[in-house]
């Protein structure tokens, strides 16, 4: 497991890794316009991490995918989501303060990329949370299963 798979899988992974991550970021970014959103895009990015884990094993894990960094980023995503929810607490919890406000995300054109009020920001927060959460679950389980196999 730690040595990874064959050279074909590793080469294909090198090509497709960045493409999958960019596609996941696209799905998160356009979550308020097209099908998708934070959950789906985060799952796509986490699938790229899973592909890298399967292809390269846990040997190449030390630098690129640090588990502690991933868990810190997950908490950053959760706190950003809660903070955006609390931002509208003057009216109601989860009130959309930026929609129709005329500021940066508050335009009146629903087809523009910078629209939707706090929705794009919440998409990024939840996307960060989901991608780092699933990636850290995968890394923990792979490390645990490898310890099991070597015993």
């Amino acid at each position, binding site marked *: 497991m730690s040595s990874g798979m064959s050279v074909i899988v590793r080469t294909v992974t090198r090509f497709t890794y960045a493409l999958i991550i960019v596609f996941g970021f696209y799905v998160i970014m356009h979550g308020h*316009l*097209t*099908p998708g*959103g934070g*959950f789906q895009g985060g799952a796509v990015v986490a699938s790229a991490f899973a592909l890298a884990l399967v292809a390269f094993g846990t040997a190449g894990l030390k630098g690129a995918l640090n588990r502690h960094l991933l868990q810190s980023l997950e908490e950053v995503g959760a706190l950003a989501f809660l903070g955006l929810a609390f931002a509208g607490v003057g009216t109601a919890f989860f009130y959309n303060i930026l929609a129709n406000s005329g500021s940066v995300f508050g335009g009146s054109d*629903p*087809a523009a990329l910078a629209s939707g009020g706090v929705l794009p920001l919440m998409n990024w927060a939840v996307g960060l949370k*989901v991608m780092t959460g*699933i990636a850290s*679950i995968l890394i923990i*389980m792979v490390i*645990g*299963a490898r310890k*099991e196999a070597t015993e």
Partner: protein
Amino acid sequence: MTLGQVPFVVSALLVVIGLYALLFKRNLIKMVIGVSIIETGVNLFLVTVGYRAGGQAPIYTYSDPTTLRVLPTPQALTLTSIVIGLATTALLLSFVVFIHRHYQTLDAEKIKELKG
């Protein structure tokens, strides 16, 4: 039963298949797969309940604004349900790894006997 209820029957059958795996299989990983199949059946049921005949997806980008739309709320709740299903599956599989490390077996009956 008419042809109109076939999607509901399919989701009910998925739940029944998952229940079968939960009740009559002794391997713990097969029981986790049964829980996953039940989740799939429930998700399919939720999406099916929100369907409106001839409706399109509730997304206005590049589509006719006057067309009929499918109900958005069941789809949103299905999204929530899918992520919760993933979390529960991950937790159940970690429990299975833990149980296998502790008892050296995955047979539910044997684990019950070992527990005493």
